[in-house]
């Protein structure tokens, strides 16, 4: 393998990793706050790509406007799902919530099949992403430069919100003790809403970039990225945002390197990802950055 190929593969890994991270954050934020695996999250990622598709290909909006609108619309879908499906079950047993999440996932997928059709649509990849860039003799697609860059910026922005703002502080508080947070005069329902909005907007950003990289969109496209991002969240320590970010990059890079170094095993790329999950969980059941469940007396 030449140096050039290695750099290209590394960038590919960072690209995929950044995308997984963006999706993984949504899983981990919702899990951190509600102890719910939001199975619908991958489908929200899919919905975002259709928003972008229609805004650009049908309504002929410029890409920057379509992207901003997609972020907002997808955030609203996430908030709507929480409001309609999850909030009424907040005090019910976890299992009801989990089954509801699976139901919401099927609902969104089938709603998409009925409304936009099961046939894949060609995604109008923005020029920025499709052009070829020459980086000191190494030729790369715009995607593998811009996606790692943009996802890093978004991830840093999210970390800033969570660790340096008042709302972010309340999110971290809610994730440990909902009742005590209420006692602080915090409207917890609103904080949960913000968490869903943020997680969904990141999934939307991930979705648009994903579709730019693999420019075919269809109603079930969220399933596999969703599972892998969820795996990334678990590997990083579910509930931990920094963990989800690291987990995303680990899974993305591992997946690409498997294909690059062991092309004969590339059919097993998905199995390989889940093998990492099993391995991490065997060594550290709470994930890389997860806290053990010890409590101070």
């Amino acid at each position: 393998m030449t140096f050039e190929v290695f750099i290209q593969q590394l960038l590919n890994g960072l690209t995929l990793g950044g995308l997984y991270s963006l999706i993984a954050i949504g899983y981990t934020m919702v899990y951190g706050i509600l102890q719910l695996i939001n199975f619908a999250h991958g489908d929200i990622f899919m919905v975002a790509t259709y928003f972008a598709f229609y805004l650009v290909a049908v309504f002929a909006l410029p890409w920057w406007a379509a992207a901003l609108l997609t972020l907002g619309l997808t955030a609203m879908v996430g908030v709507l799902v929480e409001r309609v499906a999850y909030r009424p079950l907040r005090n019910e047993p976890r299992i009801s919530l989990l089954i509801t999440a699976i139901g919401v996932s099927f609902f969104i997928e089938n709603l998409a099949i009925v409304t936009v059709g099961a046939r894949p649509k060609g995604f109008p990849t923005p020029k920025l992403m499709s052009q070829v860039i020459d980086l000191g003799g190494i030729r790369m697609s715009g995607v593998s430069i811009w996606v790692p860059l943009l996802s890093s910026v978004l991830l840093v922005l999210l970390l800033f919100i969570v660790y340096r703002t008042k709302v972010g502080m309340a999110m971290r508080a809610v994730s440990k003790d909902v009742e005590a947070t209420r006692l602080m005069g915090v409207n917890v329902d609103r904080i949960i809403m913000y968490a869903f909005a943020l997680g969904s907007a990141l999934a939307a950003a991930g979705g648009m970039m994903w579709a730019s990289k693999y420019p075919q969109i269809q109603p079930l496209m969220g399933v596999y990225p969703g599972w892998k991002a969820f795996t990334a969240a678990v590997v990083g320590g579910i509930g931990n945002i920094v963990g989800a970010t690291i987990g995303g990059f680990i899974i993305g890079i591992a997946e690409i390197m498997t294909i690059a170094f062991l092309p004969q095993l590339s059919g097993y790329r998905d199995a390989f990802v889940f093998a990492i999950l099993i391995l991490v969980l065997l060594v550290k059941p709470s994930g890389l950055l997860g806290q053990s469940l010890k409590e101070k007396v």
Partner: protein
Amino acid sequence: MLEVNNLHVYYGGIHALKGVSLSVPKGEIVTLVGANGAGKSTTLRAIAGLVKPKEGTIRFLGQDITHLPAYRVAQKGISLAPEGRRIFPNLSVRENLAMGAYARKDKAEIQKDLDWVYELFPRLKERERQSGGTLSGGEQQMLAIGRALMSRPALLALDEPSLGLAPLLVKEVFSVLEAINSEGTTILLVEQNANAALKLAKYAYVLETGRVVLEGRGEDLLKNSKVRQAYLGE
């Protein structure tokens, strides 16, 4: 300031409060004592809006707050330091205190109160940047009280602040409560440590299986033979 009238609370089929009435006048320390399971915590939780009473009313500063959600009750000026401290272990000491002031917008005044809390509990200032979970039990209790104070409450409610503390720390906590009260904060204190609580409080209620069975001035209850027998181990 606070008027609780004929409060009934159920947990499923369990009738935990069977018509509790009490009042807390402005500027005073009132205490609620009673054995484990008597309903002390439930009373405080109902006042704070964490559990919904089936019957009865809670009035605070002339307003009916019986059906307000907990966060609105907190914004009205009732701050509860709950049983078991319940500090945020993943937040720094400083952030825990900032959470206490979450609903406030008067930045300059918040800073003043922060300085005041650090003055009351110098240990917290030393550990400002540490996460709450790394504090010792006593420090966590101080943090819980400090956090409750950061909302600058009109009424500070505390649920067993001395639980699990070494005797020396218990004394420290009680003297801080006295200081807080003398600076104008009204206090409703729940304690199993009846001796210390009755000495501190102007007025006291004795709770037994969800009912107020005795009430009176703290010093009088201390002399009451029934109280001495039941709660002071004589």
